[in-house]
């Protein structure tokens, strides 16, 4: 319980930093919207094109946009060794992970809240239904749990902007594949039963990576 309350303190600090700075959200949203506009020009907004490529475009965009947010979340802890300030506070290392995970999840969901309406408009797709909401939340948890862990690893390397995508994308590919396939089935008008297996994969991935990341985080941040 204390881990959770400490994590919320850290996450609220991250959100306050973003409110004061407006650095991550604006750049990530601009990047995501630009990518979607470029693909919209490339593929058009016909029903056929939307059904074929739109889910892939959307989730690939969120995965790349997530990289920007994850990187920034630990870069701010590295400046002035703030991570050491957290490590010397009477909180567990796991609470630090949860705090960064909550903060990153919040930012990605916020980006999605802004980008998905633009995406729906450009590709002429109704993305607002319960199944797609469930897929979005599950996929975001998967991105965020792995992205937070690997960002903590990458921040101590010299080429961190390069290291994070190299670590992140191979591991997170089941989430991207699951989210793309499940979204495509929902857009085709399939029932919830049809997307069950993909939802199952997303749930399993989230459970495994949230627990595993929580447990191994302390080994990653200790020098």
């Amino acid at each position, binding site marked *: 319980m204390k881990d959770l309350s*400490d994590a919320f*303190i*850290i996450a609220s*600090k991250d959100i*306050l*930093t973003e409110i*004061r*700075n407006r*650095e991550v959200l604006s750049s990530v949203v601009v990047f995501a919207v630009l990518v979607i506009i470029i693909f919209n020009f490339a593929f058009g907004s016909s029903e056929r094109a939307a059904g074929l490529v739109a889910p892939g475009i959307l989730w690939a965009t969120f995965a790349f946009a997530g990289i920007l947010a994850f990187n920034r979340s630990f870069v*701010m802890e590295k*400046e*002035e*060794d*703030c991570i*050491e*300030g*957290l*490590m*010397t*506070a*009477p*909180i*567990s290392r796991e609470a630090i992970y949860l705090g960064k995970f909550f903060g990153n999840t919040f930012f990605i969901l916020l980006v999605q809240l802004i980008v998905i309406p633009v995406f729906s408009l450009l590709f002429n797709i109704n993305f607002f239904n319960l199944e797609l909401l469930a897929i979005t939340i599950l996929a975001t948890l998967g991105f965020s749990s792995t992205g937070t862990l690997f960002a903590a690893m990458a921040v101590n390397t010299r080429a961190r902007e390069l290291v994070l995508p190299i670590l992140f994308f191979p591991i997170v590919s089941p989430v991207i594949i699951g989210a793309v396939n499940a979204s495509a089935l929902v857009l085709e008008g399939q029932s919830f039963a049809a997307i069950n297996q993909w939802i199952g994969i997303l749930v399993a991935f989230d459970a495994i990576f949230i627990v595993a990341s929580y447990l191994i985080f302390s080994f990653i941040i*200790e*020098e």
Partner: protein
Amino acid sequence: MKNSIEVTNLCRNFGSFEALKNVSLVARPNETLAIFGHNGAGKTTLLKILSTVMKATSGNVLYGGLDMQKDPEKILSNIGVISHRSFLYSSLTALDNLTFYARLYSVPDRNVRIKHLLTAMGLRTRMYDKVGTFSRGMQQRLSIARALLHDPGIILMDEPESGLDNKASETLWQLLNEKKRTIILTHHNLERGYAVANRFIILARGSVFFAPDNKCPLAELEAAYSASLEVA
């Protein structure tokens, strides 16, 4: 009375390089222990291990008889760390930073405590300004306020006076002396470190080179420091 900190046979390796070699020392309750040593002697590594930021390769550290593996939160809530770096978020204001750390340390009456420290460090009028706009000295003063927020009984300081003017140094020691504390510090200035400490240790190439039981004359300390250079 138990020693505030008791270090036994501490070793830390970075690959094949031995940064600390069988370092043993004690910090007695309410004393100020100064650690001297030339560049690369292992002072910062030792403080990082004592502040739990870094793990030792081998050896043991007890804090008031308590083991960090068993009582980490109890131990950490009684330690304050002042480092080369400020541990402050440049995008947040001075007040935001102190409020954040006060919440993490569960400081009672945190607003009163924060304003007391900001006033003492001469930063009350800048509390709503972002830390990124502060000079190095102001950041160091705010960093001291951050470390003293929870009124810790043990203070670990790595070159605490670097970037501080004389008045700020005086204020630092006034605040530290508000209550009895055990202080371990590193200092680049032998005379200044001698003036503020009760006892000294000189490290050379990761080992304890000189560790008198009580405060020795300054000349003896200077002679030992010069001799340690030959080892280094």
